[in-house]
């Protein structure tokens, strides 16, 4: 299982701040996440950045059980 962090509007759309998924790539895991959370989450995901272990990642990147995927919608800090 790979941990997924869901931040800000992604957390709101998913209904949870973190979750766990099976899958070999970032893309597979996010696909499972859309299945689990539905259309609202899919819309947020479409405008979000994806990081793995704190760094920007591609959908084709491989992940394992010690990796952490983060879904980061557009920010508004400060």
């Amino acid at each position, binding site marked *: 299982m790979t941990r997924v962090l869901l931040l800000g509007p992604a957390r709101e759309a998913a209904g949870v701040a973190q979750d766990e998924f099976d899958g070999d790539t970032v893309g597979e895991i996010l696909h499972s996440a859309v299945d689990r959370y539905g259309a609202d989450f899919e819309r947020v995901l479409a405008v979000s950045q994806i990081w793995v272990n704190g760094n920007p990642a591609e959908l084709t990147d491989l992940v394992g059980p010690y990796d952490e995927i983060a879904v980061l919608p557009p920010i*508004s800090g400060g």
Partner: protein
Amino acid sequence: MNLAPNLDWVFVSSSPLSADELCKWATRPNCGAVVTFCGTVRNTSTTGHDITSLEYETDVALAEARLAEVVGEARSRWGEIGAVAVHHRIGTVELGEITVVVAVSSPHRQDAFEAAKYLIDTVKNCVPMWKREVWEGGSAWSEEAHDIVSVRKR
């Protein structure tokens, strides 16, 4: 608050922030200038309502790692600066309270001003942080949202 480190101090917390605390911490025997920037909750809003508070959320570990990267980049640009602190509040922050505070000390004030300006601009562009605007009877995500920028691209 946790034990303050020596030269770089990034911190994300739901506790109230203090300009004095960072100003005192940043003061060093060889640094005659300390510039602080405080972002505070104001009543004007991106959604047209009278704001009563803001709610910030993030993942603390991700945000602190990014803050540390921003501070490192500031040091590579202004080699003479002394202590650097960036603290960001999360959770509910009431009108007039501090949401983010930056403090930079330096032997010379020009560097301290430039680095503090760079730090707050870069924090706002590069650090994962989400803001809800809260008013009497409602709340919504801030409409001034933008993609996270990588620190080196600025």
